[in-house]
């Protein structure tokens, strides 16, 4: 189970590197991926996912239901939990938008990484403590590999 009250998100440095790399590759489109880990607030790996947005992938991202299910099955089969998702904001700050909030689920982390002119920038972590609650920023701690 996910503990949405977890105030801190810990992440291996390799996960941060992978997110930065995929967000850079996706630029100028939004990149996205899943966050998996052994326990709430402990992100041990990321799985890059294709941005299936059909409208304007420079400012929007969509994870297909098929990719969601495959990711969740991968986590379950290995004793991990699907902790949440990250996505990039090309040439925008690493702050969740109203659209991000509209789609956010209690129990799933939202990580946002800024990509400025093709270079990865700030990464921030958020959750929503309840169905109608606003985003709450979480402390993000990156551990050495």
């Amino acid at each position, binding site marked *: 189970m*996910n503990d949405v009250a977890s105030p801190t998100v810990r992440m291996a440095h390799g996960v941060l590197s992978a997110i930065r790399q995929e967000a850079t590759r996706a630029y100028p489109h939004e990149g996205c991926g899943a966050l998996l880990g052994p326990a709430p607030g402990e992100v041990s790996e990321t799985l890059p996912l294709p941005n299936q947005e059909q409208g304007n992938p420079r*400012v*929007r991202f969509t994870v297909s*239901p098929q990719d969601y299910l495959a990711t969740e099955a991968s986590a379950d089969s290995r004793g991990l939990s699907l902790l949440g998702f990250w996505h990039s904001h090309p040439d*925008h700050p690493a702050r969740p938008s109203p659209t991000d909030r509209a789609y*956010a689920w209690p129990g*799933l982390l939202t990580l946002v990484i800024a990509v400025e002119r093709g270079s990865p920038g700030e990464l921030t972590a958020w959750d929503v403590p309840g*169905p109608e609650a606003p985003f709450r920023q979480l402390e993000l701690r990156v551990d050495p590999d």
Partner: protein
Amino acid sequence: MSVRVRIPTPLRPLTGGRALVEASGANVAEVIGALASDAPALRAQLLSEDGKLRSFVNLYLNGEDVRSRSGLDTALADGDELTIVPAIAGGVRLRPAP
């Protein structure tokens, strides 16, 4: 009708951590009602106050989107599998809710 319901990770705290539960009902709405009788918060996650399936929730019956059938009125048969999938999306530009 007895069906299996696959529960997505963010809703598992409401089902005691279980990823797969059994529920009974003649249609999708009845199954959700049965699940909600054990976990009232689950209804609020899946249905709006007027009882409609929330926009950010996808329901698949044996792999087929129930919205392409009869939605919450879609009839069920013994052994069917209902899968709940959160819609995962966002982005910097505001857009209307789907």
